[in-house]
């Protein structure tokens, strides 16, 4: 690999880590579970509203 290419390579790496940032897969799953809980309880009460109409 030439020096220039190597430089390009590192530059690309820097860019990607900056864009992707740290590994936050666990966080994403945790907040999605939280979101799922909210959606379920909301539709639960909405259902109660509809049956009581």
């Amino acid at each position, binding site marked *: 690999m030439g020096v220039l290419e190597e430089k390009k390579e590192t530059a690309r790496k820097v860019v990607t880590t900056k864009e992707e940032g740290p590994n936050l*897969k666990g966080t994403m799953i945790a907040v999605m579970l939280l*979101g799922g809980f909210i959606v379920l309880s909301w539709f639960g009460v909405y259902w109660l509203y509809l049956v009581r109409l």
Partner: protein
Amino acid sequence: MHMHKLERLWLIIGSGALVVFLLVIGVNAFAMGHTPPSDRDILDPTQVDLTAPFDDPGLKKIGDNEYELVLVAQAFTFQSNDELKIPEGATVHFKVTSKDVVHGFQIPKTNVNMMITPGHVNTITHTFDEAGQFLILCNEYCGVGHQAMGVPLEVIK
């Protein structure tokens, strides 16, 4: 401002869910006629007994199994000149005002729930598909007897 791509995704999904909630209740309220009780009629709260229809509160048949139930909330009861008995399947339009302080108007097991503020009339409609004992209760603090402020409503076969 820089944002982690998963955070952006989460915010899109989360806000999307909020938009869905808003659309569901928006359509249900405005297209299907289920806006929350928001009557605009007003009256003099010190002259309730002299103001129609509250000068003669009670049950009036206004159509085929359709009734208007006019009630006056006051510490600590709901006043009516008629017995509160209605046939199964009846649609009842409740029309209520207060003679003194703020009261609540709620019938457990149904969606009937509204605030009764003095000087204002509030209305709500409910169809009682099943016979049984119901309870009209006040759910806003109105004084020492607040916990006693409830009257039975009977839906008969």
